[in-house]
């Protein structure tokens, strides 16, 4: 039986955060108020989304210090500790795309001949930059005008309305369109966190000696280009696009993968390898 430890932990974190946000509106809880755009933790600590903040700044509006400080706190957290963990441990869309991805495997939609490959994974970085340019041109935070992430979160807190269609669209796109299409190819927020978390400390470590080359980790990984060292080298996964979701650790039957702290001595050889 496969281990589900990190999957369950992630779901608990994701749903727990949504419950807190929901309760802040529905019952007046003060533990965690607001939405991902900008929140207030314990009623004092401001938190804000770095990419949303950049978009608003791109429109030319001088934001309040609460938001700027909040964005700084979040940026530092993922930069130093979490890496791209927002995507797999916090973002509610992750549950939608994970479900789509799981169904893909069950429905045999993952075979090469039915997998569309017209999208490049680097598209998200173009979209990230484009979002800032469009924000500056149109004068509103451009990605926030259609972001399925905050639409889903606000939907849960304040009610969905027709916004649910955006979430369904993402699900259908990931299921029948491109594998990991949204989170792995398009989402500019994921791109931002990939860049922010490039040098973070928490990393998945691979033990080449223990690996039996079963490739289960590569099948389940939503960003499997980051697992280039499997059965080749005993190093950490240092690519910023790794979401630290821990699915590879869960599915590994050989204890060849585990979370650890980045070892700086190995990071050089990784770069050479690329």
């Amino acid at each position, binding site marked *: 039986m496969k281990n589900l430890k990190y999957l369950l932990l992630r779901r608990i974190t994701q749903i727990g955060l949504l419950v807190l946000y929901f309760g802040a509106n529905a019952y007046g809880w003060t533990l965690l108020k*607001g939405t991902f755009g900008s929140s207030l933790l314990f009623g004092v600590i401001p938190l804000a989304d770095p990419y949303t903040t950049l978009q608003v700044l791109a429109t030319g509006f001088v934001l309040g210090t609460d938001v700027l400080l909040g964005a700084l706190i979040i940026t530092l957290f993922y930069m130093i500790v979490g890496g791209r963990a927002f995507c797999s441990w916090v973002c509610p869309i992750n549950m939608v795309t994970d479900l789509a991805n799981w169904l893909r495997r069950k429905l045999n939609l993952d075979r090469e001949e039915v997998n569309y490959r017209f999208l490049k994974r680097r598209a998200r970085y173009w979209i990230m930059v484009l979002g800032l340019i469009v924000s500056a041109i149109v004068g509103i935070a451009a990605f926030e005008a259609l972001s399925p992430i905050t639409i889903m979160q606000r939907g849960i807190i304040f009610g969905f309305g027709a916004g649910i269609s955006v979430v369904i669209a993402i699900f259908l796109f990931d299921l029948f369109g491109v594998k990991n299409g949204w989170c792995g190819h398009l989402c500019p927020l994921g791109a931002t966190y990939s860049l922010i978390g490039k040098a973070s400390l928490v990393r998945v470590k691979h033990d080449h000696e223990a690996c039996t080359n079963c490739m289960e980790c590569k099948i389940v990984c939503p960003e499997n280009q980051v697992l280039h060292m499997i059965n080749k080298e005993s190093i950490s996964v240092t690519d910023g696009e790794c979401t630290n979701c821990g699915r590879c650790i869960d599915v590994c039957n050989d204890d060849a993968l585990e979370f650890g702290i980045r070892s700086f001595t190995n990071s050089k050889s990784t770069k050479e390898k690329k």
Partner: protein
Amino acid sequence: MAHSNNRRKFMATTLQSVGLTALGGMLWSGYCDEATASPLVLRPPGALPEKDFLDACIKCGMCAEACVNRESNIDKETGKQRPGTLQMAKGGDHRLIGTPFFKPREVPCYMCDDIPCVPVCPSGALDMPSLLNEKKELDINKATMGLAVVHKESCIAFWGLQCDACYRACPLLDEAISLQYQKNERTGKHAFLLPVVHSDVCTGCGLCEKACVTEKPAIFVLPREYSMGRAGDHYVKGWDKKDQQRAGERKLDEIETHTKRSEKAPADYLNREIEY
């Protein structure tokens, strides 16, 4: 040879990426432009002018949360919480998604003294200083969320029926809405009591719209930009010192209207053939 092939491929993919980005940018800009084209929307108190507000709002929803969770929002009869005034725009609301707004006919702004929705705004989209009075206290009466407008054909007070629902619902009683007495010529012996809104006092809370007894409200709140005219500098109240001052500050070339026609002498214009 391989080197030049690589370079060609690089050039082609770069061109492709730039082209697709331009395409995406145009579609995206167009969408955003359409998404913001919903002018008749009422924002929370202290909101910046609509254009700046759309820049600034970070869509966190803390104003709406503060609004629905305020202590005064408990229904005294049932002890339960009522729906809040502020809604966060959802898909299908035809307002920029995630921004706060209110619909007075559903839930008007109750003009809380402590204005719970404004100080929680982290981005500055709800501008607290604009709501401070001379004593530097929060003063909800300084809010300008909109302006109530009366449609006199559907207002039953203009029919001669006695109704002062809006007048009595107004939190600034007899200041924002006053009743104007007028003789009813039709009956010859009754009076009209006509609601008149005063734009210098009205905050646009919408309690009048909520209270209005007609099927579709005959008094309703519109954003000030749409419910107010402007006389301009051509017209001056000669009897009002302040207004004269306003007119005195104008610059002459700003008020002279220059058109193609105004360049000609009036006589030339009169002697010309009529053009339509």
